[in-house]
Every structure is written in structure tokens, then in C-alpha cells.
């Protein structure tokens, strides 16, 4: 329904503008040749009424069109959210941006092209039908104009698709090559010759050609419609005298560029729309299932576990029900990916067993994985903690914050992230641990908790982890081995 309103208002806006121009021209001509008794008051009223209708429809279209767009945006976002629930997003930085852009494009569809294209087509139809009833001579010209416009639209549509495909290719080529270039930045000074910034010219070129295509088609449309107009005047026998309505096809052809131009920008938006759809359909996703496990875990066994696609040796270990275990290793030893494989976040070969029962692939509810760089959501502090448990009460939240050394954050409704307080790296690590504590599961998998911490806090953290490990298994991956930590069992990944 809101879509229909948008479409109707857009068409009325366009139509009222054109009719106003035609009717005004006719009115002037009629006045110039008026015979006595010509009722000039009614047309004068109509002219003003048309003007008001156009203005109102214009505003209404903007308002309702955007309202509809915003509603669509909300719906599409929720839809994507639901679709991704069983998926893990790979290449997150690029994918997130692509998804946001694609959803924005799709939400814009009705404003950007559907109502534009529909309005232009509707006007063509009206012009064709009225002229068919009124005069066969006019009909001929309008039909020629229609045929020409449709051919131009089709041609432009095809061309736009081609350019869009080239643009996408150019863009991904640029992204790949520039990524390599930027990642090598620390080496530029050693071999200036081999590092050249890849040129973005091809991406820009495609963009400029998009613009160029619209310009040229508009130019052709204008040339064609004016040629038709000149032809019509040329073929005009002298029957026009005293016929003010002769101005109707004249104005229609003269203004053709104005009322048909939208079709081309609509084409471009339509092609973008299709691209957005393909992008959403071909997101780099990895299916992710979730298994609920028996709550008190008594033992956990890992057999020949090896994350897919990484050049590391498989790992086997038997872990106790409680205590701290350490995966020791330098960066690049594969401890992070091993921890993620144990958590079930990334695909791996081998098996994981809990209390002797093999776990299927995917996440397991008994385990909570704490990332190396925990993410802070844009939201209140409480919201950031409630991620781990929606039923968290405020006093509980305070207790946990105190325990992890974030006790100085006293306002649970303080906004974090964009447009609010930014947490430092160390604070984020504590936030991650606070979430693990709140979720209160029997197994924690903690990635690099000690990096970048000062000695004093490191000591306090070890004490706290020690206390937590009384009732649960805490598996830590780290290249730092604090002396204060009593380690139950450890595995050195560097040695393999």
C-alpha cells in the first residue's frame, strides 16, 4: 500500500507538471484567438489547481516515498538478520560494508527507479491513448516518440548492465591489488621498485562511462523529439489556424526530455538493484549449527583436531573438568584458529568429545569463546553485558564489572562505541571476560587475555581466572605465560 501511494504520488507529480505546461500553453493560445463568449475563468482556475496539485504531490511523494523507504530498510535489515542466524560471515569487514550498501540500494528501489520508470511509462500510455482518440495525425507522432524512447531505454539498459559488470570487475581487481600493496607497507622502503600503487582509473572510468551513457541517451532523446517536432510543423497543412489545441502535441514533444528523462537514471538504479541482489545472494557465508550439551561437563577430549586450510599439525588432548589449561605458542603457531576450531566457529577435521559423546560440527552451548579483540557493541554498557545473558540484573552486572576490574564504569546506561564512550584495548579484553562470566558456562576458551596488560592487572586477572577455574575448564591461548598462573596442563604449539 505505501508502495502504491509512492508510485501514485510520483506519477501525479510528473503528470500534473506536464499537463500544467500543456494546458497553460493551450490557454494562452485560446485566449489569443478567443471568440466572444469564451469562458476564460474556468481554465484559469484549472491552471491554478494543477499547479497546487503538482506542488502537493511533489511534497507528498518525497514524504511518503521516504517513509516507505525507511520501512523497507527496517524490514530488509531484519530479514537479513534472520537469514544470517545460522551462518558465520566470512571476510567480515568487506561483507558488512557490501551488505549495508546492498540493503540501502534495495530499500531505495521504489524511490530510485520503480516509481520513476512507472511514471514515465504511464505518461507515454496516457499520451498515446488520448492522441489515438483525438487525432490520428498526433497519434502517429506520439507513437514514433514512444517507439524511439523505448528503444533508447532498452539500449541504455543493456549498456548500463555491461558497464556495471565492468565496474564490478574493475573494482574487485583494484581491491585485490591494492590490498596487497597496502599490506606490504612496512616493506616499501626496502624495495621501492616492486611496490606500485595500483591505479583506480578503471573503476573511475566505468563510473564516468555510466554518466556518459545517460548524457548521450538524453541528448539523442532530445534530438529525436525535436526532430519529430520540426517534422510535424513541416508536415502541418494550414488547418492549424484557429485551433489552439495544435499546441498540445507541440508542447508534448518540446518537453519530451523533461518528462521522459527519469527513465535513464531509473535504468541505472535498476541495474544497481540487480547488482545488490546478486551481492546479497552470493555472500561469503559459512553455515553454523548450534548444539546444546549436558551442563556439567566432566571431561573434554580433542582428537586429531586441525582447522581446515591451515598449515598446522593436528592436535589431540584430554582436558579436565576444571582448572586452567594453556595453549602456548607464538603468533602464527595456529593457537587462535585451534581455539576457534575447538569452539566450533570454524570448520575443522578431527573430533571433539564432551563426556565421551562426540560433538557434531558447529557451536556447542557448553562453551564460550572469548575473542582476542572482543567487540564492543554500539549500545549501553548493560546492553553489551546482556548479550551474554538477557536476564542479567543490574546488581549482578555491577558485581561482574567489579570482578574484572571495570568497577569504575558506574553507569550501566552509559553509551559505548560510536557516539559514546570508546573502550581501550585492555578494557575490551575485560568486557569479553565479563561476558564469559555472565554467560556462566562450564568451558571458557580465552584468546590472548594477557597481551598489553600491565603487571599489576595481570596479577589480579590471574587470581580471578584461578578462582573461576575452580568450577570450570578455562582453556587459554597465549604467548605470555604469567608466573602467577597455576597451569593444570599445557601444550606448546611452537614445538610442533
Amino acid at each position: 500500500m505505501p508502495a502504491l501511494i509512492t508510485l501514485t504520488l510520483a506519477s501525479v507529480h510528473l503528470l500534473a507538471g506536464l499537463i500544467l505546461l500543456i494546458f497553460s500553453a493551450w490557454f494562452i493560445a485560446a485566449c489569443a484567438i478567443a471568440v466572444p463568449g469564451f469562458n476564460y475563468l474556468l481554465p484559469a482556475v484549472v491552471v491554478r489547481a494543477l499547479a497546487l496539485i503538482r506542488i502537493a504531490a511533489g511534497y507528498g511523494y518525497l514524504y511518503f516515498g521516504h517513509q516507505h523507504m525507511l520501512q523497507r530498510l527496517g524490514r530488509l535489515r531484519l530479514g537479513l538478520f534472520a537469514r544470517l542466524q545460522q551462518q558465520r560471515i566470512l571476510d567480515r569487514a568487506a561483507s558488512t560494508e557490501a551488505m549495508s550498501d546492498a540493503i540501502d540500494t534495495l530499500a531505495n528501489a521504489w524511490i530510485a527507479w520503480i516509481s520513476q520508470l512507472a511514471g514515465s511509462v504511464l505518461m507515454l500510455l496516457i499520451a498515446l491513448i488520448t492522441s489515438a482518440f483525438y487525432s490520428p495525425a498526433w497519434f502517429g507522432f506520439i507513437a514514433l516518440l514512444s517507439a524511439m524512447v523505448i528503444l533508447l531505454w532498452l539500449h541504455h539498459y543493456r549498456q548500463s548492465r555491461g558497464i556495471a559488470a565492468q565496474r564490478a570487475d574493475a573494482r574487485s581487481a583494484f581491491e585485490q591489488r591494492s590490498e596487497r600493496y597496502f599490506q606490504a607497507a612496512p616493506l616499501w622502503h626496502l624495495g621501492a621498485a616492486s611496490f606500485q600503487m595500483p591505479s583506480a582509473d578503471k573503476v573511475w572510468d566505468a563510473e564516468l562511462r555510466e554518466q556518459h551513457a545517460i548524457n548521450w541517451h538524453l541528448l539523442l532523446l532530445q534530438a529525436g523529439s525535436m526532430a519529430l517536432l520540426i517534422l510535424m510543423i513541416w508536415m502541418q497543412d494550414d488547418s492549424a489556424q484557429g485551433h489552439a489545441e495544435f499546441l498540445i502535441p507541440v508542447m508534448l514533444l518540446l518537453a519530451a526530455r523533461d518528462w521522459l528523462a527519469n527513465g535513464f537514471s531509473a535504468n541505472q538504479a535498476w541495474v544497481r538493484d540487480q547488482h545488490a541482489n546478486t551481492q546479497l545472494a552470493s555472500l561469503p557465508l559459512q553455515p553454523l549449527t548450534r548444539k546444546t550439551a549436558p551442563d556439567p561437563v566432566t571431561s573434554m577430549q580433542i582428537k586429531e583436531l586441525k582447522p581446515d586450510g591451515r598449515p598446522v599439525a593436528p592436535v589431540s588432548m584430554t582436558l579436565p573438568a576444571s582448572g586452567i589449561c594453556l595453549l602456548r605458542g607464538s603468533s602464527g603457531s595456529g593457537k587462535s584458529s585451534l581455539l576457534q576450531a575447538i569452539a566450533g566457529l570454524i570448520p575443522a577435521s578431527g573430533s571433539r568429545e564432551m563426556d565421551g559423546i562426540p560433538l557434531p560440527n558447529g557451536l556447542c552451548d557448553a562453551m564460550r569463546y572469548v575473542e582476542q579483540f572482543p567487540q564492543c557493541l554500539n549500545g549501553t554498557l548493560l546492553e553489551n553485558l546482556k548479550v551474554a545473558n538477557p536476564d542479567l540484573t543490574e546488581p549482578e552486572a555491577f558485581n561482574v564489572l567489579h570482578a574484572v576490574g571495570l568497577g569504575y564504569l558506574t553507569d550501566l546506561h552509559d553509551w559505548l562505541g560510536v557516539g559514546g564512550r570508546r573502550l581501550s584495548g585492555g578494557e575490551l579484553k575485560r568486557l569479553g571476560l565479563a561476558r564469559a562470566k555472565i554467560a556462566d558456562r562450564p568451558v571458557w576458551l580465552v584468546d590472548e587475555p594477557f597481551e598489553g596488560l600491565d603487571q599489576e592487572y595481570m596479577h589480579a586477572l590471574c587470581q580471578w581466572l584461578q578462582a573461576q577455574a575452580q568450577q570450570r575448564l578455562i582453556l587459554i591461548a597465549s604467548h605470555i605465560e604469567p608466573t602467577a598462573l597455576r597451569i593444570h596442563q599445557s601444550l606448546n604449539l611452537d614445538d610442533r
Partner: protein
Amino acid sequence: MTNTSNNPTPVLRDWLKQHGRAWRPVLLWINLLQLLQFGASLTMYWLLADIVHRLIVTDATVTMHDLILLLLALLTHLASQASSQHLSVKLQLSVQQHISHQLQQQFYQRQYAMIRQQDTRYWQNLFIQQIPALGRYVAHYEPQMRFAVVTPLIILLIAWPINWVVSMVLLLCMPVVPLFMILVGKGAASLHRQHFVALTRLGSLFADRLRAWDMLQVFNAFPRQSEHLQRASQLLNQRTLAVVRIAFLSNTVLDFFSTLSVALVAVFVGFSLLGEIHFGPPLTLHSGLFLLLAVPLVFAELKQLGRLYHFKAEATAALAALQSQLEMLNTHNSSSEFCGLQWHEYRIPQPALYAQQLTLQPGDKVWLRGASGAGKSVLLEALMGWRPASHQLNSECAYLTQSPLLSGQTLRDNLCLGEDMSDTQLLHALRQVELDDWLCQLTNGLDSQFGDHPPLSGGQLQRLALARILLHPRPLVLLDEPTAHLTENLHVSLCALLEYHLRDKTVIWASHKPLNQAWFNRCWDIQHGEIEEQICQP
């Protein structure tokens, strides 16, 4: 989406003044061609109105001559339009290339010190979004802005002799339009400010949750987050609509005047022709129709400017991002042998670091100490010439950090970095850093391709980086925490290797991990923004 802020942005204008000298002639040509096009369309209207007048009112026939004139006007119109658009497109490309060139110069000068500040995505987006935004602004918005100011005046001048009443009314209307637009813009801007915090917070929610997707998966937080998102999007819609409701009025004001002017001119001309009213010189269908066609042009270019308004908004944002990246540095030439330095009052402006005195002799071994975040990397980067500082080294340095790999390339490429080197050289270097056993495991030896997950651990990666430095010798070697992410054992063994191979070089080694103090003869301690020189006692 909307022009919610009408505040003048002097930054963009200043930038154009500074950099736009070369583009000025082209901009002028674009404007001239636009004027030619405008003149041609006015001529077309005049001729057409004449033809229509004769056909309908006076029963004169249309001659070939009339049509040829009309055709000529049309061709001029089309040709000038095509050329001005062509010039715009070319200008846009050259503006973009100019900025891109400047940025690349910055890359060349500030290197890793600049690149590490942002992620790859950010740098790519500068080229894909920000630079084109500035290009569009210069090539399209800028000429349109001048054109839109001139066209109403031309119409007024032309309409005056035909009928001064119409001209008069337009003249009275004209200041009203910008006035209304400014008022509306101000209203919308203040509304936007009022909702700004809420709009940013709610607007960023969706992308933010996608970025934290793994974490939401781990905690199975979807039901709550979906609900949250739904509520947020409802709130966001309400607030956005509250702002745009006013912002759209600015658009409507223009629409109002341009539409109403057509209606009023039609009624005025019609009534004059009928003899119902008598103001100004008498009108004919010819002059009346011409006025009807010309009057909307008073607002047409302004409307077009409104359509391009988002170019300006995007360019302002782009300039904000780019300008900080385009501060020029002094170029320094690094060529000669290192022959020692003795600097007084050494200063780095941003972030501020100061040293009363810095001394470095060839062959010195300096241990650069300081807590993380004290500025060790900043000092090393300034010494490399990647940051502005009061003094610059005049010899070539090698810099070693947590060294990257050139993914998608071979081991050979990773070592040679574009220079020609023999297998013997490469193998020797790999043996020196004790990577020869590892090399034997690679199926293609030196030509093994490194994919996304290369078969190297962190320790091996650093050894490879050391091999690179041995192959590309520089008199000075700066080490920035090369062992930060290594376990204790690997730290010790890599340190021994570095000490051995860099024994003849001048070395500045930043580390907060304990090092073998006996190896160093100097210490630089950074504390509270100050670098203190100390002689190390072995």
C-alpha cells in the same frame, strides 16, 4: 539524502582556491558552453513561439527558412551541451588523478607510519569513494552553482522589454526563494542537531551488529538483538522523518515557485491577450508563449543544483577524511653512508616527543625502552623520515616490525622485493637465519607460492624478515618489537640470531621485553614524551 545542513563550509572553498588554479580555465569553458546552450534553447523557444503564433493566429505558412533556423538553434544547443558534458567528465577524471597523485606522494613519504593508522578498507575507500566525490564536486557542482546564479538574471533581462510586469514579479520572487531555502535549511539543521546523537546511534546499529556477528553467534544473542534492531529501526524512522519533513520543504519551496510562476504567467498572459487586464506592453501569442516557456528556466538550474547538492555534502565529508592525509612533509634525501649524529633539541610535533640531545655513532647499539604507548614506534618512524620532525637522518635505514608477507607471491618475490638476486644469495641468507630446514619442506623451494595461510609460524616469519634485511643491507637497522608476539623461548633464540647478524650495523632496538644488556652501548628511555639518553653499563 537531504540538505539538512546549509551551513557554509569554507573548507571546501578554500581547498578549491588552493588547488583549483589549474582547473579554472576548464571550469570557465564549461560555464561558457552552458551559457551557449542556454542561449540556444532560448532562441529555440523564441523561434518556436513565433512559428506557432503564425500557424494558429495569423494563418501564415511556415517557410523552410524558419525550420532551418530552428534546426540550427537545436544543433547549437545539442553540440554545446555535449561539449560541456564532455569537458566535465574529463575535468572530473583529471581532478581525481591529481588528488590520487598527491596521496601517493604521501604514501611514498610517510609509508608505514601513515598506512598503519587505518585499515586497508579505509585506504581503498579513499580511492573508490572519497576521491571521486571530490571529482564530482569540482566538475559538476561547482560550474552548476555559478550557472544557476547567472541564468535567472539573463531571463529577467530578456523578459523586461517583452513585459516588465512579468520581470518585476520574478524579480520580487527571486530573493524570496533563497531566503525560504535558508530558513528551511536552518530549521532542518537544528532539528538534525537535536536528533543527531540518536540518529547516529540508531543508524549505526545494523552494520555494528553485523561486525560483531561472531560474538553474537557465540553467545546466541539473536532473539534479543533482533528485537532491539526492530525497535531501533522504528525509532530511527520516526526521528528521521521528523527531520526530513522539514528538509523536504526546501525542495518544495523551489517547486512551489517554479510551478506557480508557470500558472501565474499563463493566467496573466491569457488575460492580457483577452484584454481583461492591461499592464505593461501589449502581448501576442508569440511573446506570451515565449514567456511561458522561459519563466520555468529561472528555477530550472537552481533545481538541478538542488539535485546535485549531495555531491557537495559527500565532497565535504571526503575532504575531511583526505585533508588530514595530505599534509606535506619535507622531502629528505637518504643516500650517503651513516657517519654519526649529534642532535640537540630534537622534536617530533605530533604526537609530541622531545629529546634534549640524541647521539648515535656508527656501530652503536641502542636499546629503546618505554612502556607500550610511550612513543617508541613514533620515534622510530620519525627517524625513518615517515613523520615530520626537527631533524632527519640522511642515510638509508631498514625497518623491521611484525613483518608481513606478500600473499599470493612466491618466497623468491618475498625475499627479492623486485631486485635481481641469485639462488645462491637467497639460499645463503636463508641458511644464515636457520630457515634452510624449513625450505627443504617446501615442495617448490624458492618458488613456493604463499597463499592466505602461508606455512610459517611467527618465529619463522621474523627470521624471513631478517633474511630480507641481510639481502637488502642498510647501514642502520631499526627494530620495532620484533619479538613482541613470541613465546619466551623463541624470543631468546631470535634475539641471539639478531645480535649475531646485526653485530656490524648501527642498531636501534625497541623492546619492552628484557634484552641482553651487554650487547648494547646506549639506552634511550622514553617517558612522558621525553627521550633520555643513557650510557648502558654492561
